[in-house]
């Protein structure tokens, strides 16, 4: 008799969640990343019904793995390591869209003219500095 369910945990469960969320075209990247973290943190194992639906792998669907705009804090990196450290972190993000998403999520103001990845990175560093200065002013 064939199995009708399958228990998942560990790496296979993480892969299942990633593919499940990546296949949801209408799920914003930020929400997807947040949901993925929550599911991975709170669920140790699940039992899924078989057969599993065939989902296009993210690469086949033409989409990238979910970008997490909260993977690091620009304020924390800049405060601890300075502008060079923050630039190094931002250099790991190639897509201008992802850089814009990071700035929006972390409430870092960037000027309208910043379109290229390089300009966006510089604007994020500048905006983060202003944000830190603003907080200091509020507490003075």
């Amino acid at each position, binding site marked *: 008799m064939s199995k009708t369910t399958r228990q998942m945990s560990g790496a296979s469960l993480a892969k299942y969640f990633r593919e499940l969320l990546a296949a949801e075209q209408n799920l914003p990247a930020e929400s997807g990343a947040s949901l993925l973290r929550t599911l991975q*943190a709170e669920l140790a194992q699940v039992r899924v019904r078989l057969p599993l639906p065939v989902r296009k792998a993210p690469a086949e669907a033409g989409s990238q793995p979910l970008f*997490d705009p909260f993977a690091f804090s620009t304020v924390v990196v800049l405060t601890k390591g300075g502008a060079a450290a923050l630039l190094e972190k931002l250099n790991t993000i190639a897509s201008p869209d992802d850089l814009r998403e990071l700035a929006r999520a972390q409430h870092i103001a960037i000027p309208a003219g910043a379109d290229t990845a390089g300009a966006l990175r510089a604007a994020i560093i500048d905006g983060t500095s202003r944000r830190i200065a603003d*907080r200091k002013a509020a*507490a003075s």
Partner: protein
Amino acid sequence: MAYFLAVANRKGGVGKSTVSVMLAHALAAWGGQRVLMMDLDSQCNASLILMGGEAWSAARREGRTISDYFFDLFDETHPEPRDYLVHQTGDVVDQAGKPLRISLLPGSLMLEDVQGELYVKEARQSKDPETVGNRVRGRLERLLRRFEPNFDVVILDCPPGLSFAALAALKAADRVLVPFRPDYVSQLAVDRVALLIEDRRNGEHLAEVPLDQRRYVCLANSVRETGRERLLIDEIALDHPMLATRMPHSDAIANAFDWDPQPKSIDQKYGAGAAALRRLYDELAAGAAHRIAA
């Protein structure tokens, strides 16, 4: 010598009273401590949670609230401050089914008015506002300390904003717990209350005090663990001492504060939230092992 723990934040709605009550339960239930809760917030939420509306109303009629205590004893003539306390409050019992040793100095809606009256009373002795303010605060601080010999831990549930009573509590405290919600406005509120607790003028002066030498520690409360919240907590921890424990946004905790006289264990009271409370208790007790550990 009692250990004085103030729970304070100038911002309202961050969970000062609920955290105060949870800690009172934890210290009494798991630590076996004799706990006194002093409700300095004129919203009186801690009192209502611990004793219910009817008993609190009776305490008001009988003149046994914190504003009565401050007013009657301001000149330090009343013989027995213990008359103002209500003992064995709350609905949590120990493993043997006995009420926990949690006493309460009930809150009062009149606390701000009484502090104004005390200021006027003191102003007859001096014309200098700063001198008068310091004297009122100093007298209230001494009144807060009068229960010291009879308890192991005194929890000072502070009001939002500033008042002589709040300042007296911050002065009297061995440790100040600053609950906050992980949002932008709370971040600014933590910065401000830290200046007040450490008596510093601005952030640069505050930074001169090493994190491990500060009298306060921050507690992220009602946390949903979203990416934005995690980042804000990390950012606050850059400048302020932070407990590793984060109190989760939890229905079990939120629903635990309805007045219910039915006796229950602390695990029954807080349900799924009891584990987080246990972590908070363990972490705080570890930080003051010589004073409040079980």
